[in-house]
């Protein structure tokens, strides 16, 4: 077997712990969390013959961490009024906003060969499938900018009288939406209802009622306690104090002891945040449910999805920004002085008191393909990457290091399994989202569900958050497991529900997302640090989901638009 690993260039193997000392059984126990799985008689050799083993472009990105890596000084300088660093949803949204406001004189630089960040998608020729984020929630009437984007994309067809968007039917998640594999059979929905007691049901109803009440709560100014984006949420103390405890603790305080209810809430936390219930802030836990409920309706806002997941939005935006996009470009320094001059050592970007800074910012970029170093002098920069990267790139971030020291990021693993046919299963038929009760994984979504292709080959996307890394394996060790080990883990997990999965799988592509999503743990979301980090530094503006503390497309979009508006408010001019 020789899986085609085309990106596998992490740290030297000497730094890897003794992963190979673990037996397969221990590995399954540690990763999937169910010892009984290890006893099923499947063997390691039953893996498909092909698969890519992907990761973010560490090779290029790693040069940022390595102080000894010297990069030549740029000889070739160009002037660009605005540079957006990062081509994820935040950076692309900033570009969209600039274009929409009639400003075209800017560049979007991305480290990777493909833009999209964690909203990227794959394409097998016949099918498209997500590599990460795969849905958004229908926005409420007040999220005007996002509705504008969705109208432009013809996803929103028209608006109701109150401004609520009406989404084209083909983009709303097709029924049946979710099923759960419990006690050897599939049941409809997400709640593990089999063998639940009356008490379980009562607690579930209480919980649902409570979430509905939270969705209706407003502060004295009429601001909702929970809404998307979180910048529009009320900051009244009565709500923010929820951030001081974990969702597990808050659930206990409500007197909810049902193990099934706990599983249901824990699943929600792992699904949206990559965190277990005891590591998620109660504010974030409630936000997951309450922010998606319209106060005048009992059901959650509908899910909007595409075969490519949020890659659909990426494709639209990158097409729009074709003239501005430059991929494979490592921005390794952003500085107030032109590199090479004597004062370069001492100058630091200063926090901007007024936004009308006139002095330019100098960016040094390295072309990953050609190795060519270039310089860009920009009036304004939108840094649309995470804070831990900003610290390595931007001069003057030292003081903010303390500010962002409590920013933590969760890691994920996503496997795309190419199947020759639909797996056999008993119980409720295959859905968009298919979840396993007895697993630490999040189950899988079916890429062909939304296109109505219900027979024959398909691609399913298996999600695994490193939600509660403890015991024998660290997060870095998990990220460094072999392709064959992850392929076996994914198949063993799915085998519980689909005994025939190994015969059906033709190819497994695996993506490792190291430090991909900000973690909304207790005392982070409403800390001053998070809010201060969004403040511009000189002519550098920031846009990323870590500034929200919650990694949703809607949050990335909000920050992109906000940063673009900040830049435009400074009256940047085309050259």
């Amino acid at each position, binding site marked *: 077997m020789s899986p085609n690993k085309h990106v596998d260039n992490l740290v030297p193997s000497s730094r890897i712990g003794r992963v190979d000392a673990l037996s397969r059984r221990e590995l399954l126990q540690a990763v999937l969390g169910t010892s009984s799985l290890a006893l099923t008689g499947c063997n390691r050799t039953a893996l498909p013959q092909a698969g890519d083993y992907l990761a973010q472009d560490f090779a290029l990105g790693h040069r940022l961490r390595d102080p000894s890596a010297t990069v030549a000084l740029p000889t070739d300088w160009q002037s660009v009024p605005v540079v957006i660093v990062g081509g994820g949803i935040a950076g692309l949204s900033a570009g969209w906003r600039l274009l929409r406001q009639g400003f075209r004189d800017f560049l979007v630089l991305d480290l990777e060969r493909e833009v999209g960040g964690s909203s990227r998608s794959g394409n097998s020729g016949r099918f498209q499938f997500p590599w990460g984020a795969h849905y958004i929630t229908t926005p409420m009437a007040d999220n005007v900018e996002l509705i504008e984007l969705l109208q432009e994309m013809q996803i929103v067809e028209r608006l109701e009288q109150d401004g609520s968007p009406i989404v084209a039917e083909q983009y*709303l998640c097709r029924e049946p939406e979710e099923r759960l594999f419990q006690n050897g059979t599939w049941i409809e929905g997400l709640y593990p209802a089999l063998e639940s007691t009356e008490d379980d049901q009562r607690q579930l109803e209480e919980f649902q009622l409570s979430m509905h009440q939270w969705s209706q709560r407003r502060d004295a100014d009429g601001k909702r306690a929970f809404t998307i984006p979180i910048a529009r949420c009320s900051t009244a103390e009565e709500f923010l104090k929820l951030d001081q405890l974990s969702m597990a603790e808050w659930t206990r305080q409500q007197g909810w002891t049902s193990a099934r209810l706990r599983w249901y809430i824990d699943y929600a936390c792992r699904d949206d945040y990559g965190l277990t219930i005891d590591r998620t802030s109660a504010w974030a836990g409630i936000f997951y449910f309450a922010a998606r409920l319209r106060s005048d309706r009992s059901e959650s806002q509908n899910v909007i999805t595409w075969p490519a997941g949020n890659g659909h939005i990426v494709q639209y935006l990158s097409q729009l920004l074709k003239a501005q996009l430059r991929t494979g470009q490592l921005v390794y320094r952003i500085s107030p002085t032109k590199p090479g001059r004597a004062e370069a050592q001492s100058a630091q970007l200063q926090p901007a008191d007024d936004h009308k800074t006139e002095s330019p910012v100098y960016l040094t970029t390295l072309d990953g393909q050609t190795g060519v170093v270039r310089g860009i002098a920009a009036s304004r920069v939108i840094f649309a990457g995470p804070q831990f990267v900003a610290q390595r790139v931007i001069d003057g971030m030292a003081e903010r290091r303390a500010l962002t020291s409590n920013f933590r990021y969760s890691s994920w693993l996503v496997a795309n399994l190419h199947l020759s046919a639909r797996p056999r299963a008993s119980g409720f038929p295959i859905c968009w989202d298919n979840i396993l009760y007895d697993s630490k994984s999040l189950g899988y979504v079916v890429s062909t569900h939304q296109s109505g*292709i*219900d*027979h024959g080959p398909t691609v399913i996307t298996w999600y695994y958050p490193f939600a509660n890394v403890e015991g024998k394996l660290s997060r870095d060790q998990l990220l460094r497991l072999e392709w064959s080990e992850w392929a076996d883990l994914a198949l063993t997990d799915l085998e519980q529900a689909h005994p025939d999965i190994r015969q059906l799988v033709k190819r497994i592509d695996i993506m490792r997302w190291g430090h991909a999503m900000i973690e909304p743990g207790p005392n982070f979301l409403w800390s001053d640090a998070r809010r201060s980090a969004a403040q511009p530094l000189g002519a550098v503006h920031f846009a990323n989901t870590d500034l929200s503390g919650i990694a949703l497309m809607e949050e990335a979009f909000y920050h992109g638009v906000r940063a673009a508006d900040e830049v435009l408010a400074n009256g940047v001019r085309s050259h």
Partner: protein
Amino acid sequence: MLTRAPLSLLYLNVLVIATCGLVYELLAGTLASYVLGDSVTQFSFVIGVYLSAMGVGAWLSRYIHDHLARVFIEIELALALLGGISAPALFLAFPFVDWFAPLLLGMVFVIGVLVGLELPLLMRILQEHLEFSDLVSRVLTFDYIGALLASLLFPILFVPHLGLVRTSLAFGILNGVVGLWSTYLLRPLLSARGLDRLRLRGGIVLVLLSVALLKADQLTLLAEESVLGGSIIHSTQSPFQRIAITRKGKGFQLFLNGHLQFNSTDEYRYHEALVHPAMLGSKPPEKVLILGGGDGLAVRECLRYPSVQSITLVDLDPAMTGLSERFQPLKELNDAAFSDPRVRVVNDDAFVWIGADDTTYDVAIIDFPDPSNYSIGKLYTTRFYRLLRERLKPDALVTIQCTSPVVAPKSYWCILASMQSSGFHIRPFQATVPSFGIWGFALASPQPLGDVPPLDPSITGLRFLTDEAMRAMFELPGDIRQVATEVNRLDNQILVRYYDEEWHEPQ
């Protein structure tokens, strides 16, 4: 020399051989009339070929001079294998071969030749031990008793309880046991050389047939027969659905996943009602789209109109359209509709196909299975109807089957509401189809609908529709009244839930 005891046992042998031979013949005749229809012709041909082949066998026996006992046993084993697999092999071959009748009669011929060889050989083996008159009387007596047993037990016991495939395999095994047993009965007449190999061959034949008998479940599905209430003459599990054709009474019936699609005795009522209201628009229809309807019966009705230039039929399952093209009874029923050069078959999911098609049609006939699952339910959504509208000329007419308005009123009116919400003008109608009961349809158009049109007098061959019957279909009786329902959308699939409630609650 053979002793007295084996001699009487050899008569038992004759009895079994005779029974097996006749059973093979009956199997072939029954199978031919199941599958090809016209039982008089089929039985007549099979009996004729079989008897004449026996004559050929008897004549050939004169050329066998040596090792009579060994040759006799070889023939037994060959007959066991060939007769045993005859019914399953013919069933399996049926969907794939165009020369089914020659194959069947060829098999009958070979079996007949082997059976024809048996008795002459056995009589020659026994002639040294018995008077000729005694020999002839005893052997023929047991032969005719065997024939009687077979002809009585076959329709009373074997076909109803075992089905054709298992009967075939069971008698093959019996035949093989006789062959193997004969190696012991006739041991004094057999040379030791190669005896073990002969017995080994007998053992292999028995094992093969026994395995096939154990696996026969997958082929015949007795349980399925009892559910479908008729004898299964063909069944296939395609990647998409289980297709079964049964014969019961005068007609045959098509089932998809256990749901009756039509009964040949009254399908004309359903298909005339489904098709003709859409064909009688203001202009003679030229381009026709049929969605579903892989049985070709709606195509047959459309082809009555000389104005039709092309018919595009979109059906998910190539196994279904293939069957309609080749399965003789079905081909007869649809007047070989798929052989007409105007007909184009597309095997694709209509939901996926309609988004990619770029023709505009004068008429669309929607004949999908009932919305019993989400995969079919999507074909009844507003999304699908909007895509359909884009494929229609402004004055196009559409008819659609929409389950029973009596048994499942919410399902029926939900389909109509969903079409209406997608911009169709709609008019409900109903017809009685004895196999289904009162059945619901709708006529729809992007433009407002006028009065019920009269039939085209130049169209012949209609059995159900008259101008009066046509008008009557559009007069809804008092128990078919509109009920309020939600609209069926991709993101609610409410119709599948209505349908499930209405058809699964006790009637």
